[in-house]
């Protein structure tokens, strides 16, 4: 494709043909404000905040205006500035403007834009405003349309990126709102709770259903022994909430902060991840050797599990019966740990810090419990933990590095990379290879399953047997892969699927990356780097080397995949209806 040259604000810029004026301007270090634009996801020119003067009859939105040879663009005329200001003032006229209590305050694209455009009066167009009831019936996601600016970023995330599509614009004109069909609450739809809508929202119209109050309550209750665990992806992103660069690994400070918040034990979900690999690789080998259902598909991601149960129920027999790592850890805390420390399980509360909103829903699943005790009692997102640390007045960046507590604090590099797409596959292959061949794996890095491509494939030779594997992240990519498997075009032994694009590092509960920053940095890449480098530097890099996991099998669980392991660490699934409400 040939290059074209245009002039933007008197600067000559050469870009490849097909580039938008918005991108071309960035290349010339000219920042055009945006609001509905989200790179690769929502490029629809709806909000018109990015308008420029390209010499036409009217101003044009630069996010959808293709740069042309010899084009002359002005991004900063009085007319352009006035148009943008009025657009934002009009958006504000139908917004609740309750910034003081908004979880997105200081990380809100509308708030930032208002300041940058010099909005002097937020009630310039005071008048009729739509008022909506807040939908907080879902265990994972809260929708507050009083803050919605109708940019459709969430709609695009739900529909295009996740192939779920349970929200969309309803009605028209001033009455337009983004809702589920028939204005049903999200809980009454086939929402998979992945939270990618939250990650896409520029304002506070979407947020997680907070369990922060419950966690404070547990911490304040002297009768409760409160155990916390944190997922691998949390350590790769939490620092962003405290101004650290994207991709900073803050494991040590994270542990120190949790201890200062008052948790009685600080465990690592990585322990559960290593345990998952022990059980899951065993399950894979068994399925392969006994003619079981293949391909086996991972079950760590509750967003994906929900998607499978709802949209691809025919693949339920393919799902690994392994519980997800935090559920395994929870089950072990209330049995193995409780027994060893002589604490009654009913006194123990397990809190999971997760990069995920679907984990909140997952923890409520009745099958994820052991008798009377739920494996996990509360789930908070990475963002909620950051809020708790701020509430407690902890100076996060000055904390010393501390280590996880014994019994479930040890982990391997294999567990750490669970947080990135392809990580579970790689971890499972390391263990499956050595279990099957009895030989030491020469090269631990399976490069073919790394990276942010939506679907990845590889064929691996394990002791003379070729094992075909595939990895998909983001449920729209998963759907594409499963359609190919269904059509018989592809045949695999083992598939890893993560509900969110890029895996857990880009989960719906992670720190929100504003759209302008996403044009420069890919959180999927930066955060994954932190995990792969932790793996590369780990003294132990294979799950079956985790000494605490081996001890747990020796002292408590017995055989891998044995009776006790099965009771505590495995689960079941059920087909779920796409439409929960049927009106005759």
């Amino acid at each position, binding site marked *: 494709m040939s290059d074209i040259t245009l002039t933007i604000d008197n600067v000559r810029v050469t870009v490849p043909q097909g580039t938008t004026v918005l991108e071309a301007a960035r290349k010339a270090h000219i920042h055009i404000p945006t609001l509905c634009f989200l790179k690769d996801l929502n490029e629809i020119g709806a909000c018109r905040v990015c308008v420029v003067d390209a010499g036409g009859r009217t101003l044009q939105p630069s996010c959808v205006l293709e740069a042309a040879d010899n084009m002359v663009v002005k991004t900063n005329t009085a007319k352009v500035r006035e148009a943008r200001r009025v657009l934002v003032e009009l958006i504000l006229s139908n917004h609740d403007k309750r910034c003081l209590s908004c979880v997105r305050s200081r990380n809100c694209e509308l708030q930032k834009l208002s300041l940058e455009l010099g909005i002097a009066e937020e009630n310039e167009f005071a008048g009729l405003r739509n008022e909506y009831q807040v939908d907080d019936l879902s265990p994972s996601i809260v929708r507050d349309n009083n803050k919605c600016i109708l940019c459709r970023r969430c709609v695009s995330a739900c529909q295009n990126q996740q192939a779920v599509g*349970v929200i*969309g614009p309803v009605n028209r004109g001033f009455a337009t709102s983004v809702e589920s*069909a028939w204005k049903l609450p999200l809980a009454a739809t086939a929402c998979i709770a992945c939270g990618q809508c939250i990650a896409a929202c520029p304002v506070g119209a979407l947020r997680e259903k907070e369990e922060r109050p419950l966690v404070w309550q547990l911490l304040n209750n002297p009768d409760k022994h409160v155990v916390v665990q944190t997922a691998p992806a949390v350590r790769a992103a939490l620092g962003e909430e405290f101004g650290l660069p994207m991709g900073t690994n803050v494991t040590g400070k994270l542990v120190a902060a949790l201890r200062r918040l008052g948790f009685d034990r600080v465990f690592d979900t990585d322990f559960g991840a290593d345990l998952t690999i022990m059980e899951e690789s065993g399950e894979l080998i068994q399925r392969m050797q006994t003619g079981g259902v293949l391909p086996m598909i991972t079950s760590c991601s509750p967003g994906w599990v929900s998607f499978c149960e709802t949209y691809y129920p025919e693949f339920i027999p393919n799902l690994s019966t392994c519980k997800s790592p935090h559920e395994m850890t929870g089950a072990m805390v209330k049995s193995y740990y409780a027994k060893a420390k002589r604490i009654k399980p009913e006194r123990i509360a397990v809190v999971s810090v997760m990069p995920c909103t679907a984990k909140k829903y997952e923890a409520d699943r009745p099958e994820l419990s052991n008798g009377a005790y739920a494996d996990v009692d509360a789930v908070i997102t990475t963002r909620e933990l950051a809020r708790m640390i701020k509430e407690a007045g902890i100076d996060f960046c000055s904390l010393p590095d501390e280590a996880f507590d014994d019994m479930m604090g040890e982990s391997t590099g294999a567990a750490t990379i669970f947080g990135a797409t392809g990580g579970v596959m790689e971890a499972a292959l390391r263990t499956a290879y050595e279990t099957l061949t009895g030989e030491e794996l020469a090269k631990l890095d399976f490069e073919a399953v790394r990276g942010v491509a939506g679907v990845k494939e590889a064929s691996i030779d394990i002791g003379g047997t070729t094992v075909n594997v595939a990895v998909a992240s983001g449920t729209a990519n998963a759907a594409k892969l499963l359609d190919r498997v269904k059509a018989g075009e592809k045949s695999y032994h083992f598939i890893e699927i993560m509900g969110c694009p890029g895996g857990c590092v880009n989960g719906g509960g992670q720190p929100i990356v504003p759209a302008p920053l996403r044009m420069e940095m890919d959180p999927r890449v930066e955060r994954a780097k932190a995990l792969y480098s932790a793996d590369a530097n780990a003294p132990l890099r294979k799950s079956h080397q985790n000494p605490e996991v081996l001890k747990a099998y020796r002292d408590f669980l017995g055989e891998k995949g044995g009776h006790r392991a099965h009771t505590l660490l495995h689960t079941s699934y059920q087909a779920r209806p796409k439409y929960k409400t*049927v*009106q005759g």
Partner: protein
Amino acid sequence: MCDCQNAYAELDAIILRHKDEPGGLMPVMQEAQNAYGALTMDIQQRIADGMGTTLSEVYGVATFYAQFALEKKGKHVISVCMGTACYVKGAQAVLDKLAEYLEIPVGSTTSDGQFTLQATRCLGACGLAPVMTVNDEVFGRVTPDQVAGILDKFQD
């Protein structure tokens, strides 16, 4: 309109006709409404599945265009003229009284399926303002206190 074996036989035929056309959703919705009277939730779900799209998409289109109805009209359709002359002569008070009497918001149908209440544009009978119609019968110079008496004639 349908064989009793499958209440959706006609809908399925409509979907089949337009399934592979670009922009086939709108004609399917129009024809479905003509055949079934309204785009109820079950009909929209079947259209979404049949056309390979989401219920959100179908519902979004159904609520964007005024021509689509989400619920079946009642046995008797009451229309109150909100044209300028009728409005000036007090049509709003008549409409409010009807809504209060029937205990439904404007634009909806009573739970027993008897009455649908709607506001319309000018009916062209400005000399009789304010005007309301029930089915094809026109009532002129209506006052709020006449509402109950008019409706009584239509109640089963």
